[in-house]
């Protein structure tokens, strides 16, 4: 079965600093999702990546899927307290990405100090 490993597990940064969160898969990624979760709440969709080398940005958040499609990174520029939360990567569990079931990493807890 596919496993996703996220690093770091937790991260504390000063407001205004840049940061990167990584998601590494044991298998080829056919659809990679990034979500943000506030404690005890639902998941907020950030981005989905499918093609090797693909990069997407939304406001100050950029995500990239590497060419080999086994690792994705999420980069936040000039972090703000509103960026604090748990960042989860999720991936299609089966090749071809046609089954829609997602396997998730354990998450990265981000704290942004003002």
């Amino acid at each position: 079965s596919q496993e996703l490993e996220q690093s770091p597990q937790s991260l504390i940064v000063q407001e205004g600093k840049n940061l990167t969160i990584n998601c590494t898969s044991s298998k080829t990624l056919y659809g990679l999702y990034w979500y943000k979760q506030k404690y005890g709440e639902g998941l907020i969709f950030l981005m989905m990546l499918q093609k090797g080398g693909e990069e997407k940005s939304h406001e100050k958040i950029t995500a990239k899927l590497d060419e080999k499609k086994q690792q994705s990174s999420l980069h936040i520029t000039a972090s703000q307290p509103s960026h604090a939360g748990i960042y989860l990567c999720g991936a299609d569990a089966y090749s071809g990405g046609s089954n829609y079931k997602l396997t998730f990493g354990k998450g990265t807890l981000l704290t942004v100090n003002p």
Partner: protein
Amino acid sequence: SAVISQKPSRDICQRGTSLTIQCQVDSQVTMMFWYRQQPGQSLTLIATANQGSEATYESGFVIDKFPISRPNLTFSTLTVSNMSPEDSSIYLCSVDVGEQFFGPGTRLTVL
């Protein structure tokens, strides 16, 4: 995108009772999913709910414990039956509309 609502948002229940969680989507979708997030853990898929057919359960989850209904293309329910404290989790529904969106979750505490 899809807008998903869940009821209740949270509940505290007694051991041995059952709770039904509702999931409503603002558009018709073929597949809906139910996930569980235990304290400090990531999400685990419970089952896939298709309209007009029985839900498909993942390994470790059974219909007697987590019966699911899918009466139409915008609605589904998940029942957590005969609850124990180990069932304390956040339960989330999701839909795939090209991208997968999640509901706000139901936070369940079993005493």
